[in-house]
């Protein structure tokens, strides 16, 4: 599940649901990723990226202060970290926005695994 190339990858987790962040952190850490930080909203996420410069961001689409697409676009525009969008909805529920926002890919939350994440960011 983890190889040398992923061992040092630093990941920021963005989701407003704390229990989900905890599960995601454990999932990523078990796979050998380093979780650089957690954020519960869009502005917090942008600040954390600026402060910690993670290699990848696990980004929830629906955030209390904005949406993940806008955050992904902003990060893509500044040549920032790889972004993987997650949502409890399916990609089809968001139409073209998923592919248009500059993210590496989309994983429905219930299908989140280190393998699915690694396939997109590594």
């Amino acid at each position, binding site marked *: 599940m983890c190889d040398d190339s992923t061992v040092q990858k630093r990941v920021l987790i963005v989701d407003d*649901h704390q*229990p*989900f962040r905890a*599960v*995601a952190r*454990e*999932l990523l850490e*078990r796979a050998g990723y380093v979780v650089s930080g957690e954020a519960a909203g869009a502005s917090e996420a942008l600040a954390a990226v600026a402060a910690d410069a993670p290699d990848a961001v696990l980004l929830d689409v*629906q955030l209390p202060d904005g949406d993940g697409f806008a955050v992904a676009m902003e990060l893509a525009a500044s040549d920032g970290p790889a972004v993987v969008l997650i949502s*409890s*909805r*399916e990609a*089809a*529920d*968001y*139409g*073209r*926005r998923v592919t248009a926002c500059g993210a590496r890919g989309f994983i429905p*939350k*219930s299908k*989140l*695994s280190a393998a699915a994440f690694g396939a997109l960011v590594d």
Partner: protein
Amino acid sequence: MASAAVTAAPSREWLRDPVLLLPAAVAAGLAVGWLGVHEHVAGSRVAADLALAWSLTIASIVALERPRWRRTSWLLAAAAFALLVADLEWASPHALSTFGLALQGLWAALLIQLALTFPDGRPWSRTAVFAMVAAYAVTIGGQLAADQAQEIASIAVALLVLFLVLRRLHGLRGPARRAQAPLLVAFAVTVGTGVVWLGSLLAADAGSYSVQTLVRVVALTIPVGVVAGIGWSRLRRPRTAELVVDLQRDSSSMRERLARALDDPTLDVAYRLGDGRYVDASGRPLELPHGDGRAITTVTAGGEEIAALLHDPALLDEPALVDSVRATAALVLENERLAAEVRAQLAEVRASRGRIVAAGDAERRRIERNLHDGAQQRLVTLSVALGLEASGTDPETAQLLARAQDEVEQAIAELRDLARGIHPTLLRDEGLGAAVEALARRTPLPVTVRSTLRERLPDSVELAAYFVVAEALTNVVKHASASQASVLLERGQQDFRVVIDDDGVGGAHIEPDSGLAGMRDRLEALDATLRIESAAGGGTTVCAVLPCA
């Protein structure tokens, strides 16, 4: 009658009633007649003056019938006396003769004022005020000027007055034309003759006496015009019995019938609702006008106001006519008022139905959001956690956990479908085209989508159209045994059409309490229509047309 412009004379004003002038006018006329004979003035001239003075006095009394013509009445009487006073020029004593000469043209100026302020005593326009002032100036002040200068000025004023009167005549309509035209025509003819007389003075400077007499004879048409206007209005007045038949038999609208009966094409009917508001026949709210351009007459039935007639103020000069129409209309208007009230209520119900649907949609959005943020979020976290635990445990437990995770996944999928059915996120974010295409992809048979939509439509229209497509496609899958279906989203100039076609067995119809019946209710709340064509064996076409400017 409650009306904006009626000015009934207070009772103590009878002392100033021109009727009291009648004996005075007779006496003054007899005196002037005696003076004329004594001074050997031409008999025709004496006769013309007396005829004009007395008929002006009679017209002044007849005009009293019209409350708004009160000032007209006074001006007629004043003109009659001014005419007799002018005849003092025949008198031998120099002072009397000079006095008469000085006031020679006053009667004409008074009649000009009468015409240019006819019928309610207010000047027609600023030009009319100017013409009146000029008329007084040339007839009284002009006596001081050289004869020729006065004659030229008089011709100029007369032509201006003639122009104003003809223009006024041209603009008169309906009841105002009926009552005012005879006087104004008579006046125009008199002024025309006056211009000829003044012209003859300028040309010959002599022999004008007979033309002066002629002007007075022609001026006799003025009092005749006043009386004729009142008489003509009375003759035109239909009898109440005829009105009853006419108002009840005719199939045209009540407004048209009343407009015809009162000969006032501008007439409007405002129906009074129980809550005091006014509406037109179609139930649209109406404000009663405030201002002097329109008069309001209320119609009552059983002591209660049921309607207001908005009409030309000139009709107020014919209170008897308005009263008879009012009494007759009360019989018929009550039905019309009830119909208007029903239409107004219908409009309110329609508006409230739209609000109920909008509130329902907002509630759907809220529920979808809550499902997503609440239960769905927790189940998703649970599913990931189960997967995580399964990966670090013994095979037996891992298998149990994997089964549990499958169940949770199933619950999440069902919850997602439920949420999508309540309010699709894609519709809100990406619009109808994208949402319908996603719907088509999820439908387990080939569905082609064609769309001419280029812009977003109002939320209510998008949501209604989406649900029609969703419901129709669900029915295709469940009942049609179709091999394919198509959806057309077509934006027209004024409307938006949604057509869902399939090649199935047909025979579909809208059953009460069915999904399509619910769709139809939703569409009707938007003034939209839902139609189904579904001959047995011929496939089914569901077509919704939504108004959308």
